[in-house]
């Protein structure tokens, strides 16, 4: 398959099941909601070392938030509900509770009502002065803080999600690969229910499973490293000088399907004339996870 001179590999991206939730952070204005959301989703690029994968999904108008203030929706994913609960709680405690004028809400209903704590345990920061309020069947906590009162919903829903959807952009130069990634990420950011957790949505250090070093269970994807073309069993043709990856986590396989299609399409629109040569994907022979995203089927 070739789109605008860009070859689409007959391969698939391999993804794995995760647990995810959406939280909504509001504040006096969007700037302060964004400060809090940026901190909440910081150091959350990969479950390998961060414990979760998180990013800002989108900004919200006051009409879309529970308290009628500007807000930001964040998605956060982890390998299990327990790990997710720990990440949400610690991040909410250090990055939202602490942030001036912020309030914290759940942005999703859980599968069959499954929930994890959001502000449930943060309430103890109130040292006995915290106040519970049941509004519309949901419990909220009012925690006295120095700027007034921190309002947080008690729980947030947990849904089965998919992590690790991806595609690789192979280009003739590093600036061209980055330009294609930027175009893809910009297009994908318009879609709901997905995030690209890496910096700017782009990964330059894609990994393979395993390493020559026993302590490591992942290492550089040498088959796609352009400087190793003569040293390893390379996947790259001579004209490819740079490869970048976009990793996508989503609330469902369909969400990732759609995001990959939109992202690949945006990259291909730059075309061969802008040095974009191939689109490929990271898979581990089916060993990593049950979700397979076949590039040619997605783009058909």
């Amino acid at each position, binding site marked *: 398959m070739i789109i605008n001179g860009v070859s689409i590999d007959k391969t698939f991206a391999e993804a794995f099941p995760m647990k995810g939730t959406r939280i909504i952070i509001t504040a006096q204005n969007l700037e302060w909601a964004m400060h809090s959301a940026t901190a909440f989703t910081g150091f959350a690029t990969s479950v390998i070392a961060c414990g979760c994968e998180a990013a800002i999904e989108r900004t919200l108008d006051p009409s879309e938030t*529970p*308290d*009628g203030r500007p807000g930001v929706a964040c998605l956060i994913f982890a390998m299990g509900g327990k790990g997710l609960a720990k990440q949400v709680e610690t991040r909410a405690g250090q990055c939202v509770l602490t942030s001036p004028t912020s*309030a914290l809400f759940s942005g999703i209903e859980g599968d069959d009502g499954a929930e994890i704590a959001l502000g449930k345990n943060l309430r103890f920061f109130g040292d*006995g*002065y915290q*106040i*519970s*309020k*049941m*509004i*519309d069947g949901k419990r*909220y906590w*009012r925690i006295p803080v120095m700027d*007034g*009162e921190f*309002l947080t919903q008690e729980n947030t829903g947990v849904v089965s999600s998919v992590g690790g959807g991806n595609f690789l952009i192979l280009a003739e130069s590093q600036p061209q690969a980055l330009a294609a990634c930027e175009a893809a990420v910009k297009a994908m950011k318009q879609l709901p229910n997905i995030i690209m957790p890496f910096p700017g949505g782009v990964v330059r250090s894609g990994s393979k499973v395993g390493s020559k070093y026993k302590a490591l269970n992942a290492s550089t994807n040498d088959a796609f490293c352009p400087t190793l073309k003569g040293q390893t069993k390379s996947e790259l043709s001579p004209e490819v000088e740079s490869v970048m990856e976009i990793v996508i986590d989503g609330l469902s396989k369909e969400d990732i399907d759609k995001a990959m299609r939109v992202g690949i399409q945006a990259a291909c629109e730059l075309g061969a004339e802008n040095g974009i040569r191939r689109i490929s994907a990271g898979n581990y022979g089916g060993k990593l996870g049950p979700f397979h995203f076949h590039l040619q089927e997605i783009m058909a």
Partner: protein
Amino acid sequence: MSALTLKLKTDLAQRVDCSPLTPDKLAGKDVADIAAMELVSGRLTLPVDQLFDISGDDVNDIRFENSSAKLDHIGHAMSQGRITIEGDVGAYLGQFMTGGNIEITGNTFIYTGCEMKGGQIKINGNAGDFVGAARSGYKNGMTGGIIIVTGNTGARTGDHMRRGMILIEGNAGEYCGSRMISGTIAVLGDVGKHLGYAMKRGTLLLTKMPQYGITANFNDCGSHTLAFLPLMFASFKKLDSQFANVEGFSRVRRYAGDVGGIGMGEILIKI
């Protein structure tokens, strides 16, 4: 199917315990069964059809017509369905109810919504003393649900109330929120003396300073913008009540008390 209608035939000499006449307890019964059911009235037990003209057959939609202030325990422990009442009712309307809806076009006597756990009671009239309260000697009043009173309430509204909401469009009597453990009472009108007496926790939300002021048992915590209030007002929008039309506010004067006890309750007054 049409609503099961129970029209009171005569003026009552004695009070009548109507607790068997709920959607839950009438489920599976036909009109003949219902007519033969016995209700306690004073020292007598009387069949339903001696007290009421019966029509309709939908036991999930029960209608009391020509109701009297001597009909007690209507909606007792109901968990679902709807009861509509034309006229006044006696004591313990909706006691122990866990779900469903009760609406009345008259006044209620004491202990409306006593120890209720869920559902909604709307009183298009006045309510007596001890709305949403605990029975004498019991520790917990209502623990869930909503009571809306379009008129006034008597004394001790929300006595020992633990959770849920009481929304009063008119005035509340003396000792409103007394011994309250938690929950919310909102009043659009005025409130009587001894507001929040022995209140432990919970919120009394007022739109204006009470005519008798705030007692010395509550300490002024200053003026604040509270983020939960817009959420609460938004939740009122779906109610058939004047509260749905109240312009939401978040700026309030906060008073904490009753400091004669643990002092964790609050009176919030719109500013």
